[in-house]
């Protein structure tokens, strides 16, 4: 891992010195084993860049803080970040030519106690699908055989048990909106939650309002979720949000054909188009 870190620092210095990018987004040292995102403007600061098994946060969404950059932005992208950037380009929030993607094949990350993260265990694209530069050799993809196992388990429950399960989950939600703020698919200028005038969603924190927020947000990103698992990772009360998103992805695949968000920039999200021969149940 540290050999890659040297390569990354070398490439970053080179890009900054040649002026190809104005700054580079990567991971830096934080308290304990935290590797918070870091923004390197000067070539001599490249030594702050870190690449080890603790670099966990998704960097894609920071491009939204600088939508009209003067120069190019360099950004370290693992598999999930690269898919996040592809989605942001598809959503026309980021111009592909404004960004220089430094691809880093990733073998999975660990949490503060060294345990493999759930999101990396389930990762389907360890090599960045889209990049401008790639460092190191591609890692072999291990895929995720039981990608929908948990979803299938839940589907077997009776409807009361399912409701009991999900209302327990949403009873714990404290409405901190971390899941929305880290999600690359959530890039609206004004979220439906903040639109008190239209009144989609109440501000009260109770099980029912949390459920409405959770279900609505899951449905909004149904065909845009890149399964990066950040929402589950950052949730302070540990809600299993990916089980909602994966259910929608499973149905989308079975109903309208296999689709993985953010892998191929030309494939459009399925809910934005239709085919005459879609499955028909309402005749």
């Amino acid at each position, binding site marked *: 891992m540290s050999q890659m870190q040297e390569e990354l620092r070398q490439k970053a210095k080179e890009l900054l010195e040649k002026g190809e990018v104005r700054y580079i987004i990567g991971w830096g040292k934080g308290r304990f084993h935290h590797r918070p995102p870091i923004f390197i403007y000067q070539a001599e600061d490249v030594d702050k860049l870190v690449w080890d098994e603790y670099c966990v946060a998704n960097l894609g969404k920071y491009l939204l803080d600088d939508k009209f950059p003067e120069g190019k932005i360099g950004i370290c992208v693992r598999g999930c970040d690269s898919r996040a950037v592809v989605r942001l380009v598809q959503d026309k929030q980021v111009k592909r030519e404004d960004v220089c993607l430094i691809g880093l094949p990733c073998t999975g990350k660990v949490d503060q106690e060294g345990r493999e993260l759930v999101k990396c265990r389930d990762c389907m694209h360890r090599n960045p699908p889209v990049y401008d530069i790639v460092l190191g050799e591609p890692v072999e993809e291990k895929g995720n055989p039981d990608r929908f196992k948990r979803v299938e388990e839940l589907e077997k429950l009776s409807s009361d048990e*399912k409701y009991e399960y999900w209302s327990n989950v949403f009873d714990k939600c404290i409405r901190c909106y971390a899941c929305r703020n880290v999600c690359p698919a959530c890039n609206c200028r004004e979220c439906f939650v903040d639109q008190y005038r239209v009144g989609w969603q109440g501000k009260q924190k109770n099980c029912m309002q949390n459920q409405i927020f959770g279900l609505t947000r899951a449905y909004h990103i149904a065909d845009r979720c890149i399964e990066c698992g950040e929402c589950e990772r950052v949730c302070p009360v540990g809600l299993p949000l990916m089980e909602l998103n994966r259910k929608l992805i499973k149905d989308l695949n079975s109903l309208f054909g296999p689709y993985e968000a953010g892998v191929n920039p030309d494939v459009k999200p399925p809910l934005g188009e239709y085919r005459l021969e879609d499955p028909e149940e309402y005749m």
Partner: protein
Amino acid sequence: MSLEEQKQVPENWEPTILAFCCNWCTYAGADLAGLNRMKYPENVRILRVPCSSRVNPQFILRAFQKGVDGVLVAGCHPGDCHYVSGNYFTRRRFLLMQRFLEYNGIDPRRFQARWISGAEAGKFRDTMLQLCEEIKELGPNRKLREVK
């Protein structure tokens, strides 16, 4: 409200069913059912929308939140949509939403979609009969419901 309390049903309980009907087909079908004096139970409230593609899945969540027991989204047959492709999108959205609600514990019969054209008054009446009967059998819906 624990699940057991939810099971008791007040005796003369009548289900409240909300139907989003597309103005060009199903709403016209409902009018035709009226013209032909076809009879169906009083539990359904019809909301007119320009096209079934106007119905936002969030309205369905809002309906269950406000205590509706069953929701129907009805529009033109694919190919007949007055707005050319409206119902194709409706079909995609609600095939997904139906499975999603079922996954969250809402009985799928509580939320249905149908294609009913302006000429199919009979089919409209039969849908209403079938819907009311199914929801009456399912009992009041207390899931996702706002406690007053």
